[in-house]
């Protein structure tokens, strides 16, 4: 499995010159220009999961006993490993992927982020019937894109059992950056509990895995800081909303072991480099439920791709990666020393960790975890403001909002918020709402011009628990394509969807309706250009994933907006994406938090 393949595209002449001779491709291996797992230097556990190269790949899915974090576990394996092997394809290939189900239940593989025929998308009940036990299903996919992606089961809770792996497509043409070496970093969250019982626990008590609720000690600390009345008001408000201000994640480090390439922090998976090399890190969040904040203390990271799509380079110190997103970053460690790759879970209940080092067995300091943050009032965002007293908001510029279509909001359920006391909210910062700052360009029909940021978006913020003053953090507004995407049409219509939920009963939905309650699919007219507006009425982040078509995230970058397969929508936020509905067929559209999807935050989009 560990092949000694040579990457041919990023051969850097500078690197070769450094070597002092005009080396041919054959000897490039001597410089270590090989994929991470085929290298480095005979190390057995460098993405010990192996590599399967296209165009023809065979995968066998099993349930078996394997060690995870040194303890016996029963994950789902793919070709004997969990998470699964790296699948490496080339742009232009016609890939043939044969998947054999050796489980005692149906399974599937979805190729996350790939543009492909609807029958090959791998969602049981939407794109195909699923793969029955003992059966082999052959996926035939024309590969017409490149970049960093991943694959995972779309059946039940199998993804939580490790049924996932990285998927890399090498570019046919020169990529807009150079590098000497690459490593794949696949983040996952593992639980030794049965995923079904995790789900039951969540349904029984939403805060089941949350041991970070505010305590009486916090109360007195608040009183000291804010005074008794303000504190009591604040607490009363949260109580009335039946929310906890510390619900950052539903499922936390109390059950999860966070893994990097299948290894726990203690196992310290190591990626090797030689000082002065430029290294491409392909970071994939293959977690079921966990967002991570990723940094490498001592190194600047330059973000060069998001969701497999090249973006204009952004040097950062840290980036937040939502579930199912991928980011490619370049780092150039100049010193012959070890660096910690630190992926802190967004709720600060744990972390995944690996080491970037010139030799085996080295390690560096592990940063202290930050304290859990409180959900600020901005989490209540758009819907929270509906009932608010706006008297203090005179002078706000609403010009950008004229012509906004609020019709889709009539069905909103504000019932849980009645009786809210907003007196404590006077200090709210509306600056981040984009309402006052951004003068929006409006077209004659009342819709915003393409690429403009929606009022209510917070693309300039990374989100909760990250201090932009502390270090330079990637935000969505940074993401900028190199060239405009092919379809330059303005959207012909807007479709607004609300992300909705009832936290206490663990019900998650779109527009207040669970998947089991809707009567039909969302319809996109074949080849229409439309704007999808997502309004997050909940207190949590949701990574929204559309299958089969790109979403061009309208982050204010005009015609250079980035395109993504998964959009993180922060609490209370209103975001939009342009879509070209060119992929005829039925496609899944859902929140990529596994238990949210299963609870009903799922729809079928039909393009016809």
């Amino acid at each position, binding site marked *: 499995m560990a092949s000694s393949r040579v990457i041919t595209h990023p051969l850097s002449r*500078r690197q070769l010159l450094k070597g002092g001779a005009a080396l041919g491709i054959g000897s490039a291996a001597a410089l270590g220009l090989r994929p991470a797992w085929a290298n480095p230097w005979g190390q057995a556990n460098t993405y010990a999961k192996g590599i399967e190269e296209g165009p023809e790949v065979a995968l066998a899915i099993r349930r078996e006993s394997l060690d995870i974090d040194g303890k016996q576990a029963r994950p789902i394996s793919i070709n004997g490993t969990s998470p699964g092997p790296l699948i490496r394809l080339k742009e232009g290939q016609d890939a043939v992927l044969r998947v054999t189900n050796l489980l005692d239940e149906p399974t599937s593989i979805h190729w996350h982020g790939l543009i492909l025929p609807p029958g090959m998308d791998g969602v049981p009940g939407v794109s195909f019937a699923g793969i029955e036990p003992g059966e082999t299903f052959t996926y035939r996919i024309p590969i017409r894109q490149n970049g960093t992606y991943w694959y995972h089961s779309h059946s039940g809770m199998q993804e939580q059992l490790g049924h996932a792996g990285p998927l890399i497509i090498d570019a046919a043409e020169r990529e807009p950056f*150079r590098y000497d070496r690459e490593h794949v970093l696949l983040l996952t969250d593992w639980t030794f509990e049965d995923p079904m019982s995790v789900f039951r626990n969540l349904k029984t008590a939403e805060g089941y895995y949350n041991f970070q609720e505010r305590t009486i000690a916090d109360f007195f600390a608040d009183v000291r800081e804010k005074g008794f009345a303000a504190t009591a008001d604040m607490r009363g408000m949260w109580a009335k909303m039946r929310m906890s201000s510390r619900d950052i994640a539903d499922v936390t480090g109390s059950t999860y072991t966070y893994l990097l390439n299948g290894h726990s922090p203690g196992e310290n998976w190591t990626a090797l480099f030689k000082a002065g090399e430029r290294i491409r890190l392909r970071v994939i969040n293959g977690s079921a439920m966990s967002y991570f904040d990723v940094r490498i203390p001592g190194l600047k990271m330059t973000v060069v791709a998001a969701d497999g799509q090249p973006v204009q380079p952004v040097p950062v110190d840290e980036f937040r990666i939502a579930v199912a997103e991928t980011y490619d970053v370049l780092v150039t460690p100049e010193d012959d020393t070890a660096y910690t790759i630190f992926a802190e879970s967004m709720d600060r209940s744990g972390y995944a960790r690996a080491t970037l080092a010139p030799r085996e067995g080295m390690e560096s300091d592990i940063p202290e975890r930050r304290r859990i943050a409180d959900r600020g009032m901005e989490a209540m965002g758009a819907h929270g403001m509906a009932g608010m007293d706006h008297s203090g908001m005179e002078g706000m510029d609403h010009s950008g909002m004229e012509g906004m279509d609020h019709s889709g909001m009539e069905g909103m359920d504000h019932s849980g918020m009645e009786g809210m006391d907003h007196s404590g909210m006077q200090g709210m910062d509306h600056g981040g709402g984009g309402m006052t700052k951004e003068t929006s360009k409006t077209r004659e029909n009342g819709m915003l011009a393409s690429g403009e940021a929606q009022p209510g978006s917070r693309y300039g913020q990374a989100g909760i628990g990250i201090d932009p003053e502390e270090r330079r953090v990637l935000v969505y507004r940074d993401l900028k394509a190199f060239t405009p995407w092919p379809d330059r049409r303005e959207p012909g219509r807007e479709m607004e969807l609300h992300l909705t939920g009832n936290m206490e009963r663990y019900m998650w939905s779109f527009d207040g309706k669970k998947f089991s309650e809707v009567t039909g699919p969302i319809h996109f007219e074949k080849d229409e250009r439309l704007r999808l507006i997502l309004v997050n009425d909940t207190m949590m982040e949701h990574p929204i994933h559309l299958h089969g078509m790109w979403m061009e995230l309208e982050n204010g970058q005009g015609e250079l907006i980035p395109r993504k397969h998964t959009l993180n929508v922060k609490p209370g936020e209103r975001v939009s994406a342009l879509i070209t509905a060119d992929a005829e067929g039925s496609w899944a559209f859902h929140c990529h938090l596994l238990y949210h999807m299963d609870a009903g935050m799922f729809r079928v989009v039909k393009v016809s």
Partner: protein
Amino acid sequence: MRLMLLALTLGLATSTAFASGEHAGSHSSADAADVDRTIRFEAGDMWFEPEGLDIAPGETIRFEIVNTGNLEHEFVIGDAEAQAAHRKMMQEMSGSHGDGHAGHGGHDMAEGEHGGVMPAVTIAPGETAELVWTAPGNVDTLEYACNIPGHYESGMSGNIDFQG
């Protein structure tokens, strides 16, 4: 797009301190006469072609740099430290919170840290720029680079090795 042409003739130079030459859109005919050779450069997204140079000390070179990419690029010659200092400055100028102006803003000169000014030219997409430069006599290696935030880190640099 503003095209800044900085023609420099470096008579004397230490390894780090460069004298600043005249700052003009046209260079004198004396420059042309003194040019030993012309080197064509391509600046793409995100690379330079060629990726390395060998130059004789004291040689006067006319660089013709064509920007074949979609983004603005610069071509700056200096030692690694001065380039790093310039890069840091440009990063700070670009704003720290993704305000979306990846562009160059008021940058019109590649200021080195050592009191000197590095030969620099900024090239808009599709444009060609020229830079005349005389290599110093007493350095081993210099770098050429584009220091627009993220560009160097993505691979827009190369080494100038001095023979002899």
